[in-house]
C-alpha cells in the first residue's frame, strides 16, 4: 500500500469509527436525550420519578380555564390520544393559545395533575401568511365536517370505541 492510500484508510477509519461510536452512545442515551416526553408516555408511567421533567403536547381546544383574580390557570395537554391536566401560574409565551404546541416543565402531583412551573410554546415548521392559513383552515374544516358526516353514517348504531389511551391506574 502506498503511503497516500494508508493515510486515506486512516482518515476513513477515524471518521467511520467516530460516527459508529457516537451513534451507539446516542442510542444508549436516547431516553435522556429527549427534551420532553409525550402525554401518552406519562399515561404509561414512562417519566422520571422523583424529579421534574418536561411534557409536550397540544393545548386542548376549549380546555383553558383561569381562576378569577389570580394568575392560576388550568388546561389539558393532549397528544390526540391521551389528555393530561396541567395547572400553572405565571407568564405565558406570546404563542400560547388553544391548539398550540406547548412544553410544560414541572412534576406530576399525586392527584394526577401536572403542576407546571414553566410553560414554553412550540411552533411547527410551516410558515404562511394569515390569509392563507385562514383559507386553509376553512378548507380543512369543510373536509373534516364532510368526513365526520360520512363516519357518522357508517357507524350509526355502533358503540363508541375506546379512546386508546393506556390507563396508569394499575
Amino acid at each position, binding site marked *: 500500500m502506498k503511503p*497516500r492510500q494508508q*493515510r*486515506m484508510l486512516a*482518515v476513513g477509519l*477515524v*471518521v467511520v469509527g*467516530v*460516527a459508529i461510536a*457516537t451513534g451507539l452512545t*446516542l442510542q444508549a442515551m*436516547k431516553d435522556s*436525550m*429527549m*427534551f*420532553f*416526553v*409525550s402525554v401518552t408516555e406519562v399515561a404509561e408511567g414512562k417519566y422520571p420519578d422523583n424529579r421534574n421533567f418536561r411534557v*409536550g403536547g397540544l393545548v386542548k381546544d376549549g380546555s383553558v380555564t383561569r381562576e378569577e383574580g389570580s394568575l392560576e390557570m388550568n388546561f389539558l395537554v393532549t397528544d390526540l390520544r391521551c389528555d393530561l391536566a396541567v395547572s400553572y401560574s405565571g*407568564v*405565558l*409565551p*406570546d*404563542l*400560547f393559545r388553544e391548539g*398550540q404546541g406547548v*412544553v410544560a416543565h414541572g412534576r406530576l402531583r399525586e392527584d394526577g395533575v401536572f403542576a407546571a412551573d*414553566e*410553560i*414554553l*410554546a*412550540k*411552533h*411547527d*415548521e*410551516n*410558515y*404562511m*401568511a*394569515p*390569509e*392563507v*392559513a*385562514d383559507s386553509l383552515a376553512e378548507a380543512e374544516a369543510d373536509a373534516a365536517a364532510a368526513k365526520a358526516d360520512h363516519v357518522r353514517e357508517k357507524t350509526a348504531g355502533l358503540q363508541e370505541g375506546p379512546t386508546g389511551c393506556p390507563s396508569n391506574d394499575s
Partner: protein
Amino acid sequence: MWKFIHQLASPPHFYRIAQILIPWLAVPGLLLIGYGTYAGLFLAPMDYQQGDAFRIIYVHVPSAYLSMLAYMTMAVSAGIGLIWRIKLSHAVAAAAAPLGAWFTFLALATGSIWGKPMWGTWWEWGDPRLTSELIMLFLYFGYMALRGAIDDTSKADRASAVLALVGAVNVPIIHFSVEWWSSLHQGPTLIKEGGPAMDPGMLYPLLAMILGFTLVFGALLLRRVRAEVLFRERRTRWVKDLVLSGGN
C-alpha cells in the same frame, strides 16, 4: 482539468486568482443580501402564528446553515490536506474556522433572540438542537486553540485536522437532532418531503439571503486564505518579490 486544479493549488497562483475572485463573489452576495433584507423585512407577509417575529428567520437560517457549511469546508479541507499533503488545503481549513465560529455565534444569538418572544425562553439547557449547535461553537474554539498552541505549522495542521474530522460527526447530529429526539425547535422547513413549507413570498427572500450569505462567506474565506497563504509562504521567493514590488 487536473492541470487547472494543480495550478490553483500552487500558492502564488491561488493568491493571485483569489484576489480577482473576491469581488465577483462579494458584490452579487451583498446585492442578494440587500434584496433579501428589504424583501424579508417589508415585502414578505407576516407569519400566521408568529407575526412579524418570524422575520428573524432571514438572518437565523442563513447563519445556522453557514455555521455547518463552514465546518464541512474545514473538515473536508483538513481531510484532503492530511491525505494528499496539500498545504493550501490546510490553509483553507485554518481560514474557515474563525468564520465558522462567527456564524455559529450569530446562529445561536439570533436563535436566542427569536426564542424569547416565541418559545418564552432565551435558552433551554438539554434541548438537543441548541446543545449540538453550542457544541459546534466549542469545536471551533478547540480547533483554533489547538492551532494556536502548536508553533510548528505542519504539526498544527495535522493535529487540528484530526480534531476537525472527529468533530464532523456533530454536523449531521445538528441537522437530525430535531427528528431523532424531541426538541423545542421545530423540524426542517426547507429540506423536507414535498418541498419547502413556506409561502413563495416568504421563501424567495430567504433563498436570496442563503445564497447571498454563502457568496459573502466565499469572499471572506478567500480573503482569509490569502492571509494564511502569505504567512505560510513568508520565506519564499515569490512572496519576497511580491512585497518588494509593492503588490497586494
